[in-house]
């Protein structure tokens, strides 16, 4: 959502609307994480009155979808792809292969065994 988006672009990797969106979601999640965790705690705490817990449930569901961690997805730093990303390198499988063959990834070499 554009209301969360930063006015000035603050990332230096490959740019693409999906990447910008994902970056925005990450920042929004980081901002609202304490609140989400607090609500989750209230919901799970059986010593609190049931009404309070129900209220917390309501509030949690009413939070914006950008504040959810499940919205975050790993994206390729070089091509912005959303699938087939290696977590270790934050690269998609194709970009990983290209970089590995060029020798840009320290220690990674062609294997045969």
């Amino acid at each position, binding site marked *: 959502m554009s209301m969360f988006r930063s006015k000035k672009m603050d*990332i*230096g990797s490959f740019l693409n609307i999906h990447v910008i969106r994902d*970056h925005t979601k990450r*920042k929004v*999640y980081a901002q609202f*994480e304490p609140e989400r965790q607090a609500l989750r705690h209230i919901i799970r705490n059986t*010593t609190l009155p049931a009404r309070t817990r129900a209220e917390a449930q309501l509030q949690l569901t009413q939070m914006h979808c950008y504040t959810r961690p499940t919205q975050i997805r790993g994206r390729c*730093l070089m091509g912005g792809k959303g699938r087939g990303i290696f977590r270790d390198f934050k690269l998609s499988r194709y970009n990983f292969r290209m970089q590995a063959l060029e020798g840009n990834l320290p220690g990674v070499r062609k294997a045969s065994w």
Partner: protein
Amino acid sequence: MAVPRARLLSLMKAQCEIFSTTYNPDGIRMGNKILRQRLRGPSLAKYYPPKGPSLNELLKDFKHLELEGVNEEFEDWQEHIAGFVSTRATMGF
């Protein structure tokens, strides 16, 4: 030899006091595991690398050290505009 439950509980209580954990012998769900979780936000938000300085900013920063350079892209753009303006002037707009 069986140890009485009360004794075990008192031991547990002392243990909780020493290590400052919650004494909860009945296993009531207090949601404390959520309070114990670390916040993942800061590390998640660092996924994409931050933007580096632009060439013009670098040139400006190094000017006081008398290091100078040329931003070719910027100069080309300026030239293009100058050319555009001059052609417009000759065409009489």
